[in-house]
């Protein structure tokens, strides 16, 4: 990685990431923790950010790319302001999470993995949030909603948006 040819934008986000990297540089195996931090700052891991991490940690970009693509949790595409994750774990599957997912996609007019036109929601699936007793479950950002029916799920995303708009 040729550091000289890579311009580091001087903004708050990069400064925050750099600070985190400085603090964790000397802990063993910091890469995944740094990527978690980067994703929490930027919302996703675009190539520039991966390059930045690469140069800061002195880890080849290919290795970073390998790690980013290996783990489901890391995203390389931009996402909406809020992420809806519908659980497709076993208990949720048995209790009809598919119908909930379909209803939400229909309501938002996007496919699974897509982002709404207004960039408010991204809808995705995940495997098990450990709230199986409340199946079927979805998570908006970090908030868990359980015992869903298609209608209930639609009401929740509507209310959630309304609450934020007010």
């Amino acid at each position, binding site marked *: 990685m040729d550091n000289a040819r890579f311009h580091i934008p001087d903004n708050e986000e990069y400064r925050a990431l750099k600070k985190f990297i400085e603090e964790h540089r000397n802990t063993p*195996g910091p890469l*995944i923790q740094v990527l*978690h931090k980067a994703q929490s700052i930027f919302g996703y891991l675009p190539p520039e950010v991966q390059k930045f991490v690469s140069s800061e940690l002195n880890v080849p970009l290919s290795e970073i790319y390998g790690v980013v693509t290996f783990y489901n*949790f*890391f995203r390389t595409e931009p996402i909406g302001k809020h992420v809806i994750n519908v659980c497709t774990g*076993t208990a949720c599957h048995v209790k009809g999470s598919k119908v909930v997912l379909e209803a939400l996609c229909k309501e938002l007019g996007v496919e699974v993995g897509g982002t709404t036109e207004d960039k408010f929601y991204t809808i995705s699936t995940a*495997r098990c949030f*450990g709230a199986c007793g409340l199946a079927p479950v979805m998570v908006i950002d970090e908030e868990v909603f359980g015992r869903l029916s298609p209608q209930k799920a639609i009401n929740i995303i509507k209310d959630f948006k309304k609450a934020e708009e007010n």
Partner: protein
Amino acid sequence: MAKRLDVLVCGGGACISSHSHEIKDKLIKVIEEKGLSDEINVVETGCMGPCELGPVMVVYPDGSFYIKLKEEDIEELVEEHFLKGRPVKRLLWETPEARKIVEEKKQIPFFEKQKKIVLSNCGKIDPENINEYIAQRGYEALGKVLTEMKPEDVIEEMINSGLRGRGGAGFPTGLKWKFTRASEGDQKYVVCNADEGDPGAFMDRAVLEGDPHAVLEGMAIAGYAIGANMGYIYVRAEYPLAIKRLEIAIKQAKELGLLGKNIFETDFSFDVELRMGAGAFVCGEETALIASIEGERGQPRPKPPYPAQKGLWGKPTLINNVETLANIRHIILNGASWFASIGTEKSKGTKVFALSGNVRNTGLVEVPMGITLGELVYDIGGGIPNGKKFKAVQTGGPSGGCIPKKFLNSPIDYESLKALGSIMGSGGLIVLDEDTCMVNMAKFFLEFSIEESCGQCSPCRIGLRQMYEILDRITNGEGKLEDIDRLQELGETIKATSLCGLGQSAPNPVLSTLKYFRDEYIKHIVDKECEAGVCASLFYAPCENNCPANVDAARYISYMAEGKLELAYYTHMKNNPFPSVCARVCPAFCEKRCERGKFDEPVAIREVKRLFADWALNEPPKFTPPEDSKKEKVAIIGAGPAGLACGFYLTRMGYKPVVFEALPIPGGMMTVGIPEYRLPKKVTLKEIEIIEKAGVEIRLNTRVESLDKLKEEGFDAVFIATGAHTSRKMNIPGEDAEGVISGIDFLRKINLGENIEVGENVIVIGGGSTATDAARTALRLGAKNVKIVYRRTKAEMPALPEEIIESEEEGIEFEFLTNPLEIIKDEKGKVKAVRFIRTELGEFDDSGRRRPVPVEGTEFTVKADLVIPCIGQKLTMSKLHAGLELYPNGHLKVDPETMMTSKEGVFAGGDAIYPSTVIESVAQGRKAAIAIDKYFGYEGALFEEERGEYVPDYDEEAYLKTILRKKPEYSDIRERIKSMALEVNKGMSLKDAIEEARRCLHCDRGKSLLKKKVEKKHKSLEEML
């Protein structure tokens, strides 16, 4: 207008007798005097329960419960409480009465069979306050270990406890510690595996969230035992709350010096850091987890070397799971022998299970190892909700298997589960009901494993994909029988050759379902049927799929939504010529799978059907006899639902069949088995008339003596639908007494107009529809006390729920868990009483139900004038059946594909082959008609057009909000119990039926596929008329 206070005065009998009416009058008077009438609402209610404390009264919203009120108290009460808002303490109901009520209240057994060790602090202490943990003897075990025990002693204690790893494989924890201690190395690590990836397991999350210090303490003890000064917790990023609580716990422990340097002023130092996972299931595998902590892709590494020798950063590393570590401090505090006293011989202690899926009580349960699956599902889990049947439990997540109902008595421990083809895994236990398709389930898990395969080794990467493709074919109706063997081979190969645990166990869900649910695979492949109604490409709509006769309810409901009764009627007639009968007595299999039920309530399909069905009764019959009839002659024996359905569909294929009936009335069980108040005879006879007009000849009062005779008369094929009219015996003394009559004999005699003296006290024995029919008939004939005695519980009664409810409404008494021992006769040989014994539910039988076991010393006697046993019936053997093969239960044996008996050209159906409902008999009759046509060398073609979607013309959007189902009208209870002829259910109005039909969600939308291969498209419905 809503009032400020609601005052509920008990108007139960006991309270009235202690003058609650006077209290109420006085209240109203005082309230008026004080000008509070607009603010306070006084209501008289039914009995509130504590009669001995009456008169009682409750004030809402605060719920103050007043007892033993006297008129002179009222003045003060209104003044103090209602006006000034101060409840009158001296009149309030307080302990110990309140306490007693609470103690008597039936607690849900969810907690009773549990033993909490790991979860003992969860739900009790504040996880963000270390002091509360310390108050529960927290860090005392660490203190004890550091000050009193040598590392070797600690390891010895662990070995003696018998604790095995709770993460899945069940490796003995003490041995793992011993090996790690024995490894050479300047630096060693303890790693807590909190990457709880099995979908369906969440005990680790609960422990981390509810009792994080227990894990930290366990890690520190492990560190001391193996000689490590550093620990890592690898926790899923999906558990933000757990991460937060762990961070707080680590910080607080460090502040108090319980982590860090020189703990308890000893030489021992130990630090803990968190490492977040990033969503890779394979990282639960220990070598992959190590790679991930090191900041790399989480790919497994070949073993050996084991982590105990060469783990994190090449150093000896001990990896234990959260639940394992949470057990440690309890073992140190209470001793290895205490721990070893819990559980089974090889599996010690407790295990936490995450109970979820189709079970009433979901959540985490901690039970001693060795508890049975049945206890978990039924006692703790509370059984299956929504009246569905239990099918299987899935344990061990994507690495485990499905265990069917016949193993409900099996204990849960590492070895037993393995023997059943599953694994303990991390403790996810998902209950599956009858609506679960096992092929789909296997596919679901395989899809999971494919997505989570790290791709390193080919058996896992390629083999699993091949298995998935086969399953995908099968669920789409394109499977071949060879696929089953192929799946088995692939699965076994992948198990044997994969590099890590993921691949080695990924085929388990397929292999275990192949083992226990092979029939379901075959159904998907051969019959292109998914009985659970899950595999969408194999059916149009769940209602139609679940109907034994595949009546296209989706379409007739669509017609009804537009008020098109005639089209709805024809749709029904294509598969079942008894719409009016079934609208009254069908268990409505269709409604059980109605998707609307997942939304609010199922569509009242059966009630809607009644409108077009009864309409058609008064229309001129539209079905005429075939003009150029086929030359082959078919005889049908028995004019019940199976025989008449067979006859009707034979006419539609060009025959003029003859039906022989021994009784003076046609209809079989429909006319002589079901009482008039549930199914009026004129309705049944009218539907039979339509069948006759279509070309079926019925010869009443004609008993067929032998099959040979029919042959002599020129019949080329025979369909036996003689029903099952011989009652099974109870095999108890006194059964021959006068005044003992079986349910079907009783109902038949009444239906044929005979007079039976029922007396005052009638006892009905059994739990099916015949039992409720007989009991309610006896009541209508003037019996004073009618009792239904059943050996299991209400939940197991085979009678329809509405029959049970209506019986209770009418005053029938029930005795559950009771079995008859003897019928006591008087000197004339007439029944006098019945001696009973109570039963309790014991172990599970193969049907997945609990077997009733008599309880000694609980015998009791009940007076009786008439005893009606209704415990099932069997085929009446006659010369007719001579030479035909039978099932062991005494019914005729047929080839399920062709409905043919062991004799060429002789077919059978209905109760004669299997005791069943009207709709099941109709389905068999129809199937037999097609089979007979094919037997004669024709195509077996009935009216079958391509069933496609039908889009009705009304605003569907308006019906997508929650609307509860419409209820039919019922006859007044006081009136109906006096009359055999008064129909109990009077149906609903056409307007209501149309509105009800519009609740349909149209699951058939977008489906147009040719259903049964046997019934190819030939003529349209209109051409068939």
